């Protein structure tokens, strides 16, 4: 039967229209509209114990994280794994071992549960927060697990939220901020396990480092759980589970958004919480870049922001199954309009140190941060060719490549930049890699969260030597002095000059900062850890400069501008390291 020409033309037109709306033309159009949408007006938040942070958007300049006086704030901190739901069991065939450390906050009141080698990291206790603050860290990135937050569909674990609030309270008492991180690694510890991989080249799964989604949200469709190339993410079951999440199979993405909203409802009025990291290291599943990020990941972030803040950036759409990139999300009546959203690009960016999406506005909500993981020469493409960091032929732009490209990327997204993870096993090579990353962060004026605070087992990445598996088992061994040398650094906590330059030399303890100020600008505050013993000198346009010594031996230098350029410096002097070799 011949189809009439008019019907055929209409059908083709509709087909093209629908495909266009669901793909790049629709995505670009909605992003441009969002880019032109004024930021929502927000009320002044209730005063908090710590100043509220927000993202400042200077005209024609790079957005940055700022305090309530508009001063740039640099967040330095570590990542503590104690609240992650790791698989842990003496029985390697058991796939659904219960949470190992207690969730009840009462188990941590004035005490700390015993560490265990079954877990990759020790429990997180109040002493950890006090140690971090004494180390000069002003923030903690706190990874959580969806599997503990929503162990049964639709039922949120209030005890786990209380436990998170307990850690936030410890941070507040220590004067530190918290970034709440919806963490995952290889999607979930419920992806399954096979003793003998059915496909050639596959290796059995080691569930110890798989974390994230609860069992009910882990849909693998029978794909075999086995790893390839020694990477836990290269696993058919993991890739399928991720794909199902991005396509909102059975409404699991809706549940995830509801889980974040539950957290946001709890911490809505708490200035100690900087904000939320909605997804750690997003893996595309079977999807290809850049479509994964532009059509699935960033639209997902937009929906999270819509749900929590109440802004209406996307189009009204259905929920419960695949939502195209133009879709926004319904207001979940949280109306949290003061916290920051730390948006991670796809995992492929970490491998390439190169933007893997179009830099388009994600949301009209102003408090956005492009959150990067800096693992140059650890996970970048050169490592697949087994090239040592000193002789690597990639990234072509060296350590700077990721940072230099992130600046236009973040400007296009109207976002500040933060390094939400970096690290390297310390040692001769590792120290050089970490020092190079820290140098880039100074150059680009971005803060960081170091991976990781403490860990068990090999303990290669952590700031502390892993505890010996004794009974009872300590939380950790000694502080590694090479990491103490690199990470206990002089840095500006705040400054009214977002274009200041500064540099700390961990080999000599010397520091220099150059900035400009106008009369009446808020003070620049410099943190000098106890390890740094040199003399502080201030020159130039300053009306006041004071040095306060804290009980732990660290110093705070407060410098009030009187107009024009000013400099702060610390003379070279031997470092007073306390760690072990």
């Amino acid at each position, binding site marked *: 039967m011949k189809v009439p020409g008019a019907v055929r033309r209409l059908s083709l037109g509709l087909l*093209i229209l629908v495909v266009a709306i669901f793909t*790049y033309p629709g995505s670009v159009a909605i*992003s441009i509209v969002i880019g032109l949408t004024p930021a929502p007006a927000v009320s002044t938040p209730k005063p908090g114990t710590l100043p509220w942070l927000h993202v400042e958007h200077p005209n024609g300049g790079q957005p940055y994280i700022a305090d309530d006086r508009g001063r740039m704030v640099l967040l330095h901190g570590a990542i503590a794994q104690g609240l992650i739901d790791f698989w842990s069991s003496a029985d390697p065939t058991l796939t659904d071992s219960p949470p190992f450390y207690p969730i009840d906050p009462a188990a941590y009141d004035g005490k700390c549960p015993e560490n265990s080698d079954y877990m990759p990291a020790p429990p997180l206790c109040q002493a950890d927060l006090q140690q971090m603050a004494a180390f000069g860290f002003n923030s903690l990135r706190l990874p959580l697990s969806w599997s503990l937050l929503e162990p049964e569909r639709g039922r949120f674990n209030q005890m786990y939220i209380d436990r998170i609030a307990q850690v936030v309270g410890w941070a507040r008492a220590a004067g530190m901020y918290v970034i709440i991180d919806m963490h995952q690694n290889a999607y979930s510890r419920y992806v399954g396990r096979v003793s003998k991989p059915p496909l050639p080249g596959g290796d059995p799964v080691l569930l110890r480092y798989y974390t994230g989604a609860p069992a009910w949200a882990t849909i693998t469709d029978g794909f075999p759980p086995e790893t390839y190339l020694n990477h836990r993410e290269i696993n058919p079951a993991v890739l399928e589970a991720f794909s199902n999440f991005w396509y909102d199979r059975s409404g699991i993405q809706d549940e995830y958004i509801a889980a974040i909203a539950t957290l946001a409802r709890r911490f809505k009025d708490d200035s100690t919480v900087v904000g939320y990291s909605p997804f750690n290291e997003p893996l595309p599943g079977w999807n290809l870049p850049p479509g994964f990020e532009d059509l699935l990941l960033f639209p997902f972030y937009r929906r999270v922001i819509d749900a929590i803040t109440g802004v209406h950036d996307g189009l009204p759409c259905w929920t419960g199954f695949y939502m195209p990139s133009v879709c926004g999300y319904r207001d979940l009546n949280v109306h949290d309009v003061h916290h920051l959203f730390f948006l991670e690009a796809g995992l492929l960016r970490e491998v390439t140190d190169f933007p893997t999406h179009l830099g*388009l506005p994600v949301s009209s909500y102003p408090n956005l941060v492009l959150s990067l993981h800096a693992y140059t020469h650890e996970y970048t493409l050169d490592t697949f060719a087994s090239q040592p960091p000193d002789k690597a032929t990639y990234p072509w732009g060296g350590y700077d490549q990721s940072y230099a490209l992130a600046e236009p990327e973040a400007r296009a997204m109207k976002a500040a930049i933060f390094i939400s993870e970096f690290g390297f096993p310390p040692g001769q090579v590792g120290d050089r890699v970490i020092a190079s990353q820290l140098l880039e962060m100074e150059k680009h004026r971005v803060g960081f969260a170091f991976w990781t605070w403490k860990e068990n087992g090999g303990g290669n990445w952590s700031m502390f030597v892993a505890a010996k598996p004794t009974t009872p088992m300590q939380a950790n061994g000694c502080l590694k002095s090479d990491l103490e040398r690199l990470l206990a650094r002089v840095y500006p906590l705040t400054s009214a000059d977002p274009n200041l330059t500064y540099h700390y030399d961990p080999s000599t303890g010397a520091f220099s900062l150059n900035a400009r100020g106008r009369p009446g600008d808020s003070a620049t505050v410099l943190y000098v850890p106890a390890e740094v013993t040199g003399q502080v000198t201030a020159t130039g346009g300053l009306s006041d400069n004071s040095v306060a010594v804290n009980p732990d031996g660290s110093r705070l230098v407060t410098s009030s501008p009187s107009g024009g350029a000013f400099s702060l410096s610390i003379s070279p002097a031997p470092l007073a390291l306390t760690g072990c070799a």
Partner: protein
Amino acid sequence: MDSTEPVEGARTNPRSSRATRALVLGLLSLPFGLLAPFAIWAALSSLRRIRKSNGVLSGKTSAAFGLVAGILGMTALIVGTAYWFLAP
């Protein structure tokens, strides 16, 4: 040289295969913008051949819609990439 293929009905003109190619490439260029130039080229080439065939070849509708889709894909690609550099 453009190939032809018989379609249903004895009196129906042979269809330009390049028109079908243009339509498929045009649709694919919406999620994969890098295919847009190929869709536009195939569509323009097909439309030219159909016009020159003096009514022998059909497929004008497919080619035209392939062209529209290709232009949409190309526009999204250019605007999306340019925004990166032009963002304030």
